[in-house]
């Protein structure tokens, strides 16, 4: 039996836009993810999927509820503690790839290693390996605007894997890709999951992606559906 790597209980989050306009993004949501799981979070737009993913990635904190990541209670964790967990235990893949435009593919991947505390020679070696494994050996010195959408997402994936995190959080990873490239990316994610036993939590609208996942969490109006 795999151990629980993410356990969130009754997560609540309200965003105050103005004095009278408040949005209850999460209204008491539970999620449990075992190590090596390949989980999809699905639900309509504005249901709180991305808010949940941001919380799981320690980019935001819940107003109420508890969140335990790999045995550590992170619910009330301060920013100066959270960055270490983000750097070493969590990898992010975003919908819009979000590569830094001023940096090459190699430098974008190496950047994650820098924040993870890797030495520069080690960083370069690992980044080249990862880009190679993504079939991008001939694209390492290209800037993001010189790469196709699929190539950019593979660079983003390599960047997420740089510090060998146990959890990979992906927010609509195929949202901006055509169906063939989407399938290619999903297959890469599944392969990583099988070969390295890395845990994947994927927010998606795409039924094909959801079908590929072992577990599906349905969210509606900030709660478990």
């Amino acid at each position, binding site marked *: 039996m795999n151990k629980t790597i993410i356990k969130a209980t009754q997560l609540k989050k309200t965003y105050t836009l103005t004095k009278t306009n408040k949005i209850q993004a999460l209204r008491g949501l539970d999620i449990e993810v075992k190590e090596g799981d390949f989980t999809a979070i699905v639900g309509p737009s504005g249901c709180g999927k991305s808010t949940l993913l941001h919380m799981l990635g320690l*980019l935001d904190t819940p107003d109420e509820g508890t969140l335990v990541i790999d045995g550590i209670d992170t619910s009330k964790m301060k920013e100066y503690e959270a960055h270490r967990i983000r750097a070493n235990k969590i990898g992010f893949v975003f919908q819009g790839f*979000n590569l830094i435009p*001023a940096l090459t593919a190699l*430098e974008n991947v190496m950047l994650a290693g820098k924040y993870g505390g890797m030495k520069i020679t080690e960083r370069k070696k690992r980044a080249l390996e990862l880009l190679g494994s993504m079939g991008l050996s001939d694209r390492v010195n290209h800037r993001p605007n010189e790469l196709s959408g699929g190539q950019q997402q593979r660079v983003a994936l390599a960047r997420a894997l740089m510090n060998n995190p146990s959890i990979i959080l992906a927010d609509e990873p195929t949202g901006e890709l055509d169906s063939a490239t989407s399938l290619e990316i999903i297959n890469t994610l599944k392969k990583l999951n099988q070969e390295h036993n890395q845990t994947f939590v994927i927010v998606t609208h795409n039924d094909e992606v959801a079908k590929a996942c072992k577990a599906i969490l349905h969210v509606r109006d900030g709660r478990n559906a």
Partner: protein
Amino acid sequence: MKEIFRNMWRRKMRSVLTIFGIAIGIFAFTVMGSMSLKINKMISGGKKYITGQITIMPKGSSASAYGSMGGSSFLAVDTLNKIAEVEGVQAVAGGVELALKEVDLNDPSSQSMSFGMPATIEGMDLETNFENRNWATMDMKDGHMITKDDPTTAITIGYTIANDNSLKVGDTFKVRGKDFQVVGIADQTLTGPDQYVFMNINQARQLLIDAVPFLKSLQERSDEAANISDASLAKLPEATRLQIQEAKSFKLEDINQMAAVSWKDGEDGDTVANRIKDQFKDEAVVLSPKKMGEMIDKASAIFNTMILGSALIALIVGGFSIINTMIMSISERTKEIGIKKALGASRKAIASEYTLEAGVIGLIGGLIGMGLGALLATILNSKTSAEIFMLSPGFLGGVVAFSFVLGIIAGVIPAIKASRMKAVDAIREL
């Protein structure tokens, strides 16, 4: 570092304008600072000299050498000898100063019309072992400072005198109708000595006597009286005898418009000055080293405040332009900050990246400004005879380091703003 340059390159015009702003500030700082350095060096040299001796003026004379024409405005050699016996005094040197050019007495305004320090003959008492406590001798550009071993017609001249009259060591220079040989040219000081002709005090005394009819007649009467023997004198009527005896008492050595006193090892200059003041308060004005030093300090403090204050204003403006640029740059790069935070960047890492970027802007602006400032100072130094800028490697290096630090300081606030950005807010910009 590569990322910093690429980020700057992304907004070329803005980066260039910011760097230009800093460069102007640093340019002003380099030019003003190098001028201030040079002048401060000169002032400190002058202060070092003037505080290395006790200056004695005859009572009733003005500080100007040109005001003392009457016999009462001289320090008699007897007085100087008595001062030499005051406890703590090492040596006393008389001094004579007069204008290099003869003053046209029919046109007294001719002096006041000239700017700056007029060219001056400085008579030096070479027979005493007086030595300024802080400054044994002047820095020389060429040749040497006159000594008692030189012929009495030897002179050492100041930098400006040499330049204005195209003189070099070995040349003959006519001073008030007499020929003198140049044995040395002093280094530029930007103060009085640049306009000095240093000569044996007896030569200067004689030139002064020749220039002042009253002294001239005194000397002539003295010369005539010297030919009258004591035996002949005794036969003369009393009134005539007294007049001749008075004329006989005139001595060249009594012509001392001022005197400089040095003190013995282990003695304190101000204490010795006070002792002299106590004993000779009726005959002389005593200027202690401390008092002279304070006067110079006050003048140089005002000067420095004016020069460095104006450069500082330029730098503050430059600093604000860095802050402005960095705030703009950071608000444009909110998304990047979010990505970096998601990748695990700590607040410290984000803050140091942006601070360093501001530092690099400051550094580039500093290098350009320093380069242009140094270039202008060098050109001005070579185009004009007066070298008014001092460009030391230490100062120039310091200016560049300062511009880097200025960038860092200006970058701190925007960088902290960036580092405190909540990751989720930055991510939501995506």
